[in-house]
C-alpha cells in the first residue's frame, strides 16, 4: 500500500502588500495619464486586483472655478435622488457621464457621473455663510457628508476644483483602462494598488480617499481608526467608506484647512515623535511638539503607514514614525516623485537628480511654485 503525502504548505507565496506612487511638476507642466499608469503597473504584484485608483490635478482647466463632483451610483434611485439634491443646492455649469471603456477585466461597474458646480444662494446657504460662520468649502463638505450618509448607493468620489479621483475594484492598470486615463493631463498624479487586509474590497473602498481637493493614497493600516473617527465626528465628518484611510483625508481637512496648521505641523500631529524623543529636543521645539501632541492626541495615526496626500497646492509624502512601510522619493528638475519602490520611480524617471528614503514621521513636501496655477 502506498501512502499519498500531501504538501503541508502552498509554497507559491502571494506577495501582495499595497503599492503607491505619485509625482508633481512644481512648474505646472501637464503630464499624460500614461506616465503614472506605467509607474503603478510596475508594482502590479503589490496589489491583488481588489482595488486600484488615481487622483489627478489640473485635469479640468475649462471648469477650474467650479467644484468637480465625481459621483458613483450603485443604482438608478441613488442617481435620481442625488441629482435632485444637487439641483436643490447647486448651480450646475455642466454635467456628464464620466467616460469609461468596457473592458473584460472590470465586472459589474457602478455608474459614474461628474458635475461642475457652485453653491446656490439658497436660504440655507445664506444662513450658513452669514450666521454660522461657514465658508464655501464648509458648505461643500457638509453636502459631501450629506450625500454619502443619506443617499443609499450614492458616493462622492471627489469634490475638489480642477481635480478628480478615479477608482474601483481591479488592478490599477485595469481601472486606468476603464476610466480612459490616458486621455487626461495633470500636473500632480497619485496612484494606488490595493491589497485589502481588514476591510472589504469594494468600489468606494479603493483609494484615493478625498474631500474638497485633498486626496490620500495609503499603504498600511490605521490602528487608531476608532479614535480618529470619533474625534472627526465631533467636527461633523462622517466616515462612510468602511475603510481606515478615510480618516486621513478628513483629518487633513480639519487640521490644515479648518485649524490653519501648516502641512509640516499637521504631519507632526499625525505622526508625532515619541515622548522620549520630544523631551530630548531643544526647549522651543520641545514645547511646540508637546503642545501638538497634547492638542491633537486624537488625530495621531497609530499603526504602520506610508501615505501620499495631494491638493492643488502640492504633494506630500509621510511615513509612520518608525517607518513600517516603504517610501522612496526622488527629484528631477521641477519634478518630485514619491513611491513604495525606487523601481516605480526609475520606470518613469530613469536618471533622477537625487533619490532618498525619508525618515519615519518626516514629511516630504513638494509645493507648486507660486503663480503657476
Amino acid at each position, binding site marked *: 500500500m502506498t501512502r499519498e503525502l500531501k504538501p503541508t504548505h502552498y509554497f507559491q507565496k502571494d506577495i501582495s502588500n499595497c503599492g503607491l506612487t505619485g509625482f508633481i511638476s512644481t512648474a505646472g507642466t501637464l503630464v499624460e495619464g500614461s506616465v503614472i499608469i506605467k509607474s503603478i503597473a510596475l508594482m502590479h504584484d503589490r496589489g491583488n486586483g481588489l482595488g486600484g485608483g488615481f487622483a489627478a490635478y489640473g485635469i479640468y482647466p475649462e471648469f477650474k472655478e467650479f467644484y468637480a463632483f465625481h459621483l458613483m451610483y450603485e443604482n438608478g434611485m441613488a442617481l435620481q435622488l442625488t441629482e435632485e439634491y444637487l439641483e436643490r443646492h447647486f448651480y450646475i455649469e455642466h454635467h456628464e457621464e464620466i467616460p469609461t471603456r468596457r473592458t473584460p477585466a472590470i465586472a459589474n461597474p457602478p455608474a459614474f457621473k461628474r458635475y461642475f458646480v457652485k453653491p446656490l444662494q439658497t436660504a440655507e446657504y445664506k444662513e450658513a455663510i452669514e450666521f454660522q460662520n461657514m465658508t464655501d468649502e464648509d458648505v461643500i463638505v457638509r453636502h459631501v457628508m450629506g450625500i454619502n450618509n443619506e443617499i443609499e448607493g450614492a458616493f462622492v468620489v471627489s469634490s475638489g476644483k480642477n481635480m478628480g479621483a478615479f477608482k474601483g475594484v481591479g488592478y490599477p492598470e485595469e481601472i486606468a483602462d476603464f476610466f480612459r486615463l490616458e486621455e487626461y493631463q495633470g500636473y500632480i498624479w497619485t496612484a494606488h494598488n490595493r491589497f485589502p487586509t481588514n476591510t472589504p474590497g469594494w468600489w468606494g473602498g479603493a483609494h484615493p480617499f478625498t474631500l474638497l481637493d485633498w486626496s490620500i493614497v495609503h499603504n498600511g493600516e490605521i490602528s487608531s481608526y476608532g479614535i480618529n473617527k470619533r474625534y472627526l465626528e465631533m467636527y461633523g465628518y462622517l466616515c462612510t467608506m468602511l475603510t481606515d484611510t478615510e480618516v486621513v483625508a478628513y483629518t487633513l481637512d480639519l487640521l490644515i484647512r479648518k485649524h490653519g496648521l501648516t502641512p509640516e505641523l499637521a504631519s507632526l500631529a499625525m505622526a508625532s515623535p515619541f515622548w522620549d524623543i520630544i523631551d530630548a529636543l531643544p526647549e522651543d521645539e520641545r514645547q511646540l511638539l508637546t503642545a501638538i501632541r497634547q492638542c491633537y492626541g486624537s488625530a495621531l495615526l497609530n499603526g504602520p503607514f506610508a501615505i501620499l496626500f495631494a491638493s492643488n497646492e502640492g504633494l506630500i509624502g509621510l511615513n509612520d514614525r518608525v517607518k513600517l512601510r516603504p517610501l522612496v522619493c526622488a527629484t528631477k528638475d521641477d519634478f518630485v516623485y514619491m513611491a513604495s519602490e525606487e*523601481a516605480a520611480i*526609475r520606470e518613469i524617471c530613469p536618471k533622477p537628480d537625487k533619490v532618498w528614503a525619508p*525618515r519615519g514621521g518626516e514629511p516630504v513636501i513638494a509645493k507648486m511654485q507660486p503663480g503657476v496655477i
Partner: protein
Amino acid sequence: MTIIDAQGLYYRDLNQKIREAVAEGATEIVLNNVNGQYFIGDGINKPVTITINGVPGNDLAAFMNGATIVVNDNAQDNIGNTMNAGKVIVHGHAGDVLGYGMRGGRVHIRRDVGYRVGIHMKSYEANKPVLIAGGKAGDFFGEYMAGGVLILLDLFSDDPEKPKHGFRFGTGMHGGKIFVRGGVDEGKLSREVGVFELTDEDRQELEGYLKEYCRDFDIDYAMMAKEQFVKILPLSSRPYGNLYCPMPR
C-alpha cells in the same frame, strides 16, 4: 558568460531564466535593464556570479547559499533575508530590513542604508554573517541582533547633512557585535547595548572585513583606517527575560 535582457520581463520569467542558466552550469550571469523584479538570486546554491545592471526589486538574495550578486546601481528592501552563504555587493544605496535573520555570507553596501538593518542576524560556529554599510543608517540598526557582525562606516553618504545613524540603535540586541567608524551618538542607543573599545583581536578581525570591502569597491584601506572605530555590544544575552514576570536564572 550568460547575458539576459530583463527589459519588461516579469519577475517569475526572469528568475526562471536565471535558474535555468545556473542549472546548465553558468558561472557568470549578467542581467541588463533590470527594474524592480523581485526575488533575484533567491535560494541559488551554486557559486555563480550574477551582475545586475539596474535596480533589482525587493527580497534580493533571500536564502542564497553561495552565489555572488553585484548590483551596479541602487537596491531596494529586504536584501539577504536568511542568507546562508555567498555575497551581495551593492554599488549604490539600499533600503530597509537588510540581512534579516542572515546566518552567513557577506552583504556589502557602498552608500546609505535604511531602517532595521541587520535585524536578527545570527551566527553559529563557523557561520558568521557580516553586513557592512558604507554610508549612514536609519533607525533600529542591529535590531534584535543575535549574532554576526554589523559595520557602519559613514563614508559615502547621499546626504552629508543627515545624522550617521538613527534612534533605537541596537533595540533588543542580545548577541553579535557592531562596529561604527568615528563613534556613535549615545543618546540614540537603546538600553540594551553599551559602547566598548576595540581589543587587539577585534582590530585584527575588523581589518579583515574592511580589506575585503575595500577590494570590492576599489577603496584605499589606509583612508578608512585613519579613523577610530567603537564597538557596540549587548549588555545581556536575554534583555527581555523579566519583561512579563521574573524568570528563574
